[in-house]
């Protein structure tokens, strides 16, 4: 179980199904998000399938490339995101998962850094600061999961008798903030956002266009699926309750997105290294003692 290769070669694991279904799930979530956001603002909003239309439209546009390495980073971003999702769903080593997940975001940052647009550079720098802000929480989460389950395998919450939410309640709250950052929700939509025209246009992804932007969008759909699976792990002993938990988190994210204005990067950093980090550390210490 600890070795990665035999599991991936075992045909009983539905790797292909995960790779195919995860972006569809992510797109539905994103579509619902846009619709609910619109309703909260008193608008009608786009069709729920709108993210599908957007991605397919982008794939059908002509490619424009600023430099070739930019394309490589877009594909690396997607590849590492898919790999991170597979590691998570197949219940592999949590530290390896963290590493791969971080490298996926890092590829995006490098892709934003390899072009000359100042907006892209600013977006990348902000993304780096965001990473510095949320990575400690994720590492503490994995340590907390180790203390709760006795090993670093992501499969162990699935076989536990009681929900992980009982033992890691404060870490769960800290994780919610991390999810808000990763989903690019206000007040954390700092590095790249559809709503920040005047400030950084589109930040990180400004120099990507057409099919290569679609690659990044697809990677984000995988990321959405990954984050909600991570939430479900907190009530993995009962998958219906786990699903309800994920649904509640989804609704909370939409409400928070509509209720807050975008704040500054340094504010996010301070908030994460004070509030969220103290919550996570308290939980870990409480388990350790």
């Amino acid at each position, binding site marked *: 179980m600890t070795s990665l290769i035999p599991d991936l070669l075992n045909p009983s694991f539905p790797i292909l199904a995960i790779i195919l279904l995860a972006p569809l799930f992510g797109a539905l979530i994103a579509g619902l998000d846009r619709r609910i956001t619109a309703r909260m603002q008193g608008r009608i909003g786009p069709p729920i399938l709108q993210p599908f239309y957007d991605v397919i439209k982008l794939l059908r546009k002509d490619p424009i490339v600023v430099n070739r390495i930019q394309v490589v980073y877009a594909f690396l971003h997607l590849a590492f995101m898919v790999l991170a999702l597979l590691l998570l769903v197949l219940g592999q080593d949590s530290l390896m998962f963290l590493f791969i997940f971080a490298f996926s975001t890092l590829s995006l940052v490098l892709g934003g850094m390899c072009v000359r647009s100042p907006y892209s550079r600013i977006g990348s720098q902000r993304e780096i600061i965001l990473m510095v802000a949320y990575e400690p929480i994720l590492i503490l989460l994995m340590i907390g999961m180790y203390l709760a389950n006795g090993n670093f395998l992501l499969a162990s919450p699935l076989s536990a008798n009681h929900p992980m939410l009982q033992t890691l309640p404060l870490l769960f709250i800290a994780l919610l903030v991390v999810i808000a950052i990763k989903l690019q929700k206000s007040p954390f939509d700092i590095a790249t956002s*559809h709503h920040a025209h*005047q400030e950084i246009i589109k930040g990180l992804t400004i120099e990507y266009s057409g099919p290569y932007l679609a690659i990044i969008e697809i990677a984000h759909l995988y990321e959405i699926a990954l984050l909600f699976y991570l939430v479900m792990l907190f009530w993995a002993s009962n998958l219906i309750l786990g699903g309800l938990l994920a649904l509640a988190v989804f609704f909370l994210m939409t409400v928070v997105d509509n209720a807050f204005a975008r704040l500054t990067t340094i504010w996010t950093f301070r908030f994460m290294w004070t509030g969220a980090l103290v919550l996570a550390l308290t939980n870990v210490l409480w388990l350790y003692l």
Partner: protein
Amino acid sequence: MSPIPKLSKSPWVVHFNCNSCNGCDIEFLACLTPIYDLERFGILHVGNPKHADVLVVTGSVNHRNARVLRNVYDQMPDPRVVVAFGVCSSTGGIFADGYNVLGGIDKVIPVDVFVPGCPPRPEAMIDGIVQAAVILESRRTAAITSVSASQGCITRIPAPPPVAVESV
């Protein structure tokens, strides 16, 4: 009916103010508000021509901004369409006789849809973008046909040649 969703389902708009008095711009921003809600057509207002499918231009074109307008247009990936909002971007409007004014934006870039008015009503603007989005799909199909006809050599849909703009 093709199983592939049409490009017209997700037109992303970039808005360029080309010497406009801001009247049309304010009306266009009204389209994004909850009363008119452009997003229900899948239309997103992006700030970046590289992400956009539809270029919305307000105001007449003059010697100074013709180059900028052309630059914004050139950065958009094909297929792309241009919508001229307001009478100024269509013909030059009341500024047409100005010594520095070249006229409508069709003097510089090919325009697909004209939405006249001073300013046009938001309903007319939304209608203009939706009509332009339909052209988007036909342009993609035509581009693919012309690729296969010319055996792999991508040819754009013939656009009217831009009028030479003397620099200031």
